[in-house]
């Protein structure tokens, strides 16, 4: 091969240009821009924050910083992970979904410790169990709580009346105090009003029952505890409605059509009220809500976090603590059904009004106490992955009639395998 000098130079220039291009693309990593920048970007997904409050924040802080807001669609966690890993174009403020928080905690160094910026002084305004879920074992605070998802029991009061059951929320709550009471109530209901079911599927019961405890699938010492009594008990609870014939076995997208028709009760978080309202507008006024059997659990809810590359941490913290102040948090509830993580908001007029969908019931009287009674639990980074096989096996029981005991054994062995893969001992 006769490589001429000219050709060599051209090739070299091309290579240099190409590598220059890559360097330029990867630029801006590391410390990431200047501190005390005036430009701040905020990433969140549709419905994570009240758009009105965010828009007001932009004008409110206009003199100090220019807040650029990006509504990120699709797989939010994936996009955030990729951006953080690449180290460039990282947002200054970002949302993190509650269910993803655990998986970000091992990489807490990618985020700023909010305690350094003043969260410590105001943290008492927010629910302790929620705050703790975004805390590393050495006390670094990664996430600023936006909202939570306290769960309750939704039910059709008119159907309850037809069945001769109590309809008043307090009385229903008393009649369905434990899971067994609740299933007994369901059996009664089914006898009187045929064709109705108590729960949409048993995986949802399992999720709730696990969430009512303080321990989940992996303990703080990174040991797998998914085979222990607390999980077994949740499993047994989930199987009960199946054996009693109270399970609607809805594992596809037909929930929308079933709710309010064959589904007369529903276990769900506060934000779930909106789903019911949208899926079954005709049942307006017939629904009530009361405390969940066996105590409240949490489902969903998110955080705001400041990535390490944040260009102006002090200003960014000022903005998020303004957006998430109890008063603005309460407005999030009115605007976007975001249930505040700040208990002070629960007594504000925005939240204490009667809800027409629930026949004028003041639903905060159910969700407010529930929010504060949610147990402190530890959620390991691999928790969601380890939980998945239990859900799968529960659908196996529903769809294929698999024996519950076999399903339990398979779920545990599968969960143990996933735990092992994820580095849990």
């Amino acid at each position, binding site marked *: *091969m006769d490589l001429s000098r000219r050709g060599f130079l051209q090739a070299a220039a091309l290579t240099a240009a190409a590598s220059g291009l890559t360097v330029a693309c990867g630029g801006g990593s590391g410390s990431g821009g200047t501190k005390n920048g005036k430009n701040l970007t905020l990433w969140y997904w549709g419905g994570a924050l009240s758009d009105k409050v965010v828009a007001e924040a932009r004008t409110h802080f206009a003199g100090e910083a220019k807040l650029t807001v990006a509504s990120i669609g699709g797989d939010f966690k994936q996009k955030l992970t990729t951006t953080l890993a690449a180290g460039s174009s990282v947002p200054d403020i970002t949302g993190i979904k509650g269910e993803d928080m655990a998986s970000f905690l091992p990489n807490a160094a990618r985020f700023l410790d909010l305690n350094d910026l003043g969260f410590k002084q105001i943290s008492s305004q927010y629910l302790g169990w929620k705050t703790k879920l975004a805390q590393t074992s050495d006390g670094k605070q990664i996430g600023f709580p936006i909202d939570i998802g306290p769960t309750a029991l939704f039910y059709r009061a008119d159907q309850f009346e037809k069945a001769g059951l109590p309809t008043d929320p307090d009385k229903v709550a008393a009649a369905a105090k434990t899971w067994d009471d609740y299933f007994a109530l369901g059996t009664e209901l089914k006898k009187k009003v045929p064709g109705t079911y108590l729960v949409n599927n048993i995986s949802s019961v399992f999720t709730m029952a696990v969430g009512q405890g303080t321990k989940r699938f992996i303990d703080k010492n990174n040991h797998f505890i998914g085979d222990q009594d607390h999980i077994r008990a949740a499993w047994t609870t989930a199987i009960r409605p199946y054996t009693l014939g109270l399970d609607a076995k809805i594992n596809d997208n*037909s929930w929308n059509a079933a709710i309010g028709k064959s589904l007369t009760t529903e276990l769900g978080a506060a934000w779930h009220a909106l789903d019911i309202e949208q899926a079954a507008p005709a049942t307006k006024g017939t629904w009530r809500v009361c405390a969940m059997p066996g105590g409240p659990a949490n489902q969903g809810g998110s955080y705001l976090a400041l990535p390490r590359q944040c260009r102006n941490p002090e200003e960014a913290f000022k903005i998020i603590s303004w957006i998430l102040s109890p008063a603005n948090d309460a407005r999030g509830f009115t605007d976007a059904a975001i249930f505040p993580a700040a208990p002070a908001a629960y007594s504000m007029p925005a939240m204490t009004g009667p809800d027409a969908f629930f026949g004028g019931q003041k639903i905060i009287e159910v969700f407010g106490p529930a929010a504060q009674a949610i147990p402190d639990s530890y959620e390991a980074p*691999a928790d969601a*992955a380890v939980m998945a096989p239990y*859900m799968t096996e529960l*659908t196996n029981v*529903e*769809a294929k009639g698999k024996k519950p005991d076999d399903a339990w054994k398979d779920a545990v062995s599968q969960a143990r395998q*996933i735990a092992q*893969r994820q580095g849990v001992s």
Partner: protein
Amino acid sequence: MPGRLGGPGPARFRPRRTPPAGSVPPRRRGPLSYWRQYLAISPFYLVFLAFSFFPVFYSLYLAFQHWDGLGTMRFVGLQQFRFLWKDPVFWLSVRNTLVIWVLSTVPTLFGALVLATLLHSVRRFKGFYRIALYVPNVTSIVAVSIFFGAVFSDNFGLVNAILGMVGISPVPWLSNPWLIKLVIALLMTWMWTGYNMIIYLAGLQAIPTQIYEAAKLDGAGPVRTFFQITLPVMRPIILFTVVISTINGLQSFSEPQVLFASNAANANLGGPGQAGLTTLLYFYQSAFLNNDYGYGAAIVWAFFVLIMVLVVVNWRIVQRGRKS
């Protein structure tokens, strides 16, 4: 093509011989002297290098690591593959993928061939039929999946409603393990029949009409003509579609993902009993939902090997009998 090097005459008829002594050898031009041409085609290769070539080999590297996507990578050797070997869900996903692939590819290719033959003999509205049959392929998979999900819904679907009118009790399309696969296969058949039909149609139009005329004179009916003439002549084209369908069909991902992701309690696990969990869906779930990138990479590389084996087997089967 022969003129590209500037040599006179068609190159393949020129005898190779050493140039007579004393003559000046023609100056050979190195590949680098074509730098302008290379520069012109370089964007594709640069993009390919950055977004296809590099990720492919990076994923091979990842298959030997434990990585959560953000933290430090840890070299674990063949551990991911050992996990894979013992993972019943992986094997379940491979079985699912193969069943769905067979259930969709066979009717797709057969249907495409039949439709192409029919369309080939149609005289009026040719363009309309072609477009009508090709449209499913350019519709968004997501939209089609949502549509199928609604049509085949267990409790409130259109199909079950129609069955109910005739007096047949509802069929659990989206919860029975076999019916789940059938619905996904049906969806893929619906999407890909038109695509293969266009390819077959192109092939059919290249067959000289004299052969058919001769067959007609000899008294061959349409069915016999199809099996004795059309099929043998089309063999290379069928081979091509079989290979392409193998690669496409084994990569089914969006169909089960959209059909079953709406169930928030069990998102992306492939529906009840994981009956719709294809290998690529399992890969996606492992890597991007469980943040287990090393394991995800191991899954796809193991699956790559499997696809290669299947393509070779397919090739062999379709090629067989060609020599006889």
